[in-house]
């Protein structure tokens, strides 16, 4: 008899929880895959492909599906890796040695004397930041350049150079005080 009561009780409980779960899945149904959007929003959007994926969004999708690690974005550096680890609740992974510090922001400039107007760089630019036409000299729209350097390899005359983004009084940042031994993360 007591066994019967136990079985019935458990059965009722399981039915109740089943209903609850069913209700929750309807009520809190998630459209689409917002995780990919959230990851994409954290990526620097240089579209450089250094992560081995063709652009930031494909990399975001790869992270979301577990195909890629969170430490494959050199332009984003440690900041992006930490932000991703925070978002996804995974352990931070150190970046490759050459990318372990915040990379300096750069843009490219075209040496307009040397440019032959081949348009190869225009085809390579992921954000259409190069202005020019065939047989015409090209130029970079500095404000649009993301510093991905994808235009450098195709150039037949090596007229594209990397320059650091100029820091002025408005974009200058206060350095962090030396916090050895005293800061909480030390």
């Amino acid at each position, binding site marked *: 008899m007591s066994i019967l009561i136990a079985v019935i009780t458990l059965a009722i409980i399981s039915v109740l929880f089943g209903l609850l779960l069913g209700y929750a899945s309807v009520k809190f149904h998630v459209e689409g895959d917002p995780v990919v959007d959230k990851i994409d929003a954290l990526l620097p*959007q240089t579209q450089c492909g250094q992560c081995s994926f063709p*652009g930031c969004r494909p990399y975001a999708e790869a992270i979301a599906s577990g195909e890629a690690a969170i430490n494959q974005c050199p332009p984003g550096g440690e900041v992006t890796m930490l932000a991703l680890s925070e978002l996804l609740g995974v352990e931070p992974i150190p970046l490759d040695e050459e990318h372990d510090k915040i990379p300096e922001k750069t843009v490219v400039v075209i040496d307009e004397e040397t440019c032959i107007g081949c348009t190869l760089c225009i085809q390579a630019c992921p954000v259409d*930041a190069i202005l020019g036409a065939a047989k015409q000299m090209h130029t970079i729209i500095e404000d649009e350049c993301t510093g991905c350097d994808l235009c450098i390899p195709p150039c037949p005359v090596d007229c594209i150079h990397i320059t650091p983004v100029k*820091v002025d009084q408005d974009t200058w940042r206060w350095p*962090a005080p030396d916090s050895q031994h005293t800061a909480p993360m030390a």
Partner: protein
Amino acid sequence: MASPGQPTHCTHGLRLDYIMSRKTHSLWHFHGGLKLDGKKAISTQRPLLKAKLPEQLILPVQQHIGDAGKPVVAVGDKVLKGQMIADNTSYISAPVHAPTSGTVTDIADYPTPHPSGIKALCIVIEPDGKDQWTELKPISHPTNLSPVELRQWVRKAGIVGLGGATFPTAVKLNTGPEASIETLIINGVECEPYITCDDTLMREYANELISGCELMQHITSARHCLIAIEDNKPEAIAILQKRITEKSLHNIEVVVIPTLYPSGGEKQLIKILTHKEVPSDGFPSEIGVVVQNVATAVAVHRAICLGQPMISRIVTVTGEGVMQPQNIEVLLGTPIADLVAQSGGYHEKASKLIMGGPMMGFTLQTDQLPVTKACNCILLENTEEQAPQPMPCIRCGACATVCPAQLLPQQLYWFASSKNFEMVQDYHLFDCIECGCCSHVCPSQIPLVQYYRFAKTEIWNQERERIKSDHARIRHDLRQDRLEREKKEREEKLRQKKLMLEKKKQKEAEAAKAGKEPEVDPKKAAIEAAMKRVQDKKAAQSSDSKPSSKQPE
């Protein structure tokens, strides 16, 4: 010096009636604050000096918060005193004027006073010594003009907030159509140690100051005007009270407030005088208050009543590192080195050059920098001792006790040092006024304010980068769309072409089947006809050998 243990505990909303005031005005307390050694007497012993004309004036095109001015003169131009040399059509901006007559010798990047030491665009003028004014247009009856017109004058004169924030005054005086301004507060508090330029200005230019108050009261339609002065400036208080009584002005009042740092902060002063708090994301005008510095008031008087733009200011040159500390009225663009030279030169132990006061000023690496509109004080310190090595935070809470913005500096420090920029904003980092009280009392001597500045500039940078990456994402998406579209278009064309060829083949096949002459394509026929004509023509030419035939057959 107030030890951290003895911060001036201020009970919230405690009402004090201060007896020294002409009419007793109710005063309140802001949270925290520090009693500091004023050290004001160092620089008030000597009379106000008019600085000599320097050999060269360097004028940064940006001496205000907002958009930088664009030079409206060229190298080699002759300029007159008061002539506009840089301007911007943007709303939040202020023009720059030539402080004396002379020649523009250069327009290029020069070092300007900024904590970064980075150069900025400057216009260099070599004075001709004549000091010849451009044509001035003073307004004889300013009250006949509307506030909008007067604000235009203030803007054209390049006036910015001279308390240090350098926000364009014309913008600040524009309180919007809905705001009804109850109180115009004229800030003569000057709460930072060492600085006495506002004190000097109030004593020397009391009449101009009162005139400026009346003008700004007219512009803002403020019901009454309070001139707030700390009780450590009895002379300035006496002079202003006397002048106000002489003129029997009933809605301008001198309010004496107790000396407590940072009473001169805009938000803190509003709290002291009105017990109201400026909303964190709002402006004082939302609670019916406008605050202007005393020097700004004098500048407004000069702009409207004399027609003179903002070309000079009073600078306190003081500290243990200078031989003859004093106040100097100086043309904008004068090198700091000139001011120190006219103040007896450096003390041999001078080691730190600060623009502003000891609590909020920033250090300069060199004295080859021009005086700008923001420059209220040049402070020279002799400190040989190294900054102490910070100890870990012991959570004593002294910083929170003195914080005038009622923040939790200690929590802000944890989050800023661990680069948790989201949490640091949740704890209201951007309400921090960087007054330095927390660092001053910290027993562990942690450079708290530097952590906050670091976090603020990092957050701004992240914001810039976020905007940039959003922009890049859109451009990348648009490009992908374009490539996709082009690909589709090409495929579509190819498909069409193939389809057409197929149709044609089919038709030919059908025609062959029917046994009829293949139907002549009109296009093909035309081409064949044209070719035939050319052949005929060629034949005709070779037979006639007359090249003149130009007419068609």
